[in-house]
């Protein structure tokens, strides 16, 4: 894959350096078929260092996950090799079955059918907590 020329897909830019891999996992990009590139520690005038993810292919993109994982990113949607949309992603108020509570004392640890729901409890500090046990989510 020539990482500079994407036909139909997206580029997640301005990822805080070091978070690229985690976003890759959260978006489950390991499960898709089309070409994916992760660029780590790329030079950035604005940020010093940044990570970038490029995907060449029409895969559904869960923007909520990105807003949770790194609200500073921009997402460039590319169609016919042209930039067609540039998105910034707000932090979502709630996350349902995106991240999972690992607290062994939480009701979700014994009831498998419960949805794992996290709420944004501190916008300035980017804190999400499990609605059941209030455990803080860690990236």
């Amino acid at each position, binding site marked *: 894959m020539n990482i500079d020329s994407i036909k139909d897909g997206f580029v997640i830019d301005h990822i805080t350096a070091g978070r690229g891999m985690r976003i890759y996992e959260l978006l489950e990009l390991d499960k898709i078929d089309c070409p994916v590139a992760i660029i780590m520690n790329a030079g950035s005038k604005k940020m010093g260092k940044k990570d970038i993810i490029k995907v060449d292919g029409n895969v559904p993109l869960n923007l909520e996950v990105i807003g949770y994982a790194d609200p500073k990113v921009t997402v460039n949607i590319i169609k016919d090799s042209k930039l067609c949309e540039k998105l910034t992603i707000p932090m979502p108020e709630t996350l349902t079955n995106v991240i999972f509570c690992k607290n062994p*004392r*939480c*009701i979700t640890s014994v009831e498998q059918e*419960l949805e794992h729901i996290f709420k944004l409890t501190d916008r300035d500090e980017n804190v999400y907590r*499990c609605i059941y046990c209030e455990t803080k989510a860690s990236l």
Partner: protein
Amino acid sequence: MKSLIDILDFTVEEIDELLVVANDIIADPKKYSEMCKGKKLATLFFEPSTRTRLSFEAAMYELGGNVLGFSEAASSSSAKGESVADTAKMISCYADIIAMRHPKEGAPLVAAMNASIPVINAGDGGHNHPTQTLTDLLTINREKGRFDNLKIGFCGDLKFGRTVHSLINAMSRYEGNKVYLVSPTELKLPDYVKKDVLDKKNIEYIETQSLDEVMPELDILYMTRVQRERFFNEEEYLRLKDRYILVPEKLTNAKEDLIIMHPLPRVNEISVKVDEDKRACYFRQALYGKYIRMALILKLLKEAGTI
């Protein structure tokens, strides 16, 4: 449907309103003796807590209502694998209000999300226990007459003591209180409570290992039990459990109008000799627990349109 899962579900005004009703019940219990006639409280106790369950049951009986339920998981349908959500839906067909205790954190919230009747959290693991906090607030209201400008000492297990975290949270909503945190290093108040509650609300606090040092200052002394089940090793428990034992001699330089509180049950952290001291109010506190639960049941049933 209004439920009580976390003490912060209620505004300061709602808590004030509950206290007014509780005080009115104490003044004239007869007026309330038939208010819940024909209504049923389901006490769903997935782990035993005789004290809390009896307090809820006594509260409902004194309102003229009835009680059904179970007192441990083995005798409930969850022993057969029923989910909390299903239990809540099923009980909604039989009762008018639920009081639930569960060893897992968040279980009462799951019940509230699925029930069509109000749910009261009667304790979910080491997480929340809002009716204990309401009990503590009614005690302070009755015994001190105010919630502001108080010097409150918490002593013992401040790390795992959820009643302590919850009361600190509730008291931080009022002006001019000062908090004294007395504990061994191993059982200090967690940093997140200091950061998220005390620092955020600008509450003045000091941490110390010496109860004697702060005793003369205190308006309220809140004693706690060091709980065996919170420790992974028995040795550490045995080493810490007798660190603070309140005996009459310790109270010689305390204020005359100090009040000594304890969520009960106690083990040995307050000597029985202290019971005769007029400043000891932990048994009155248990009585207040019944009255505040009566006020709470009334509030939730009224808001649900049941009474």
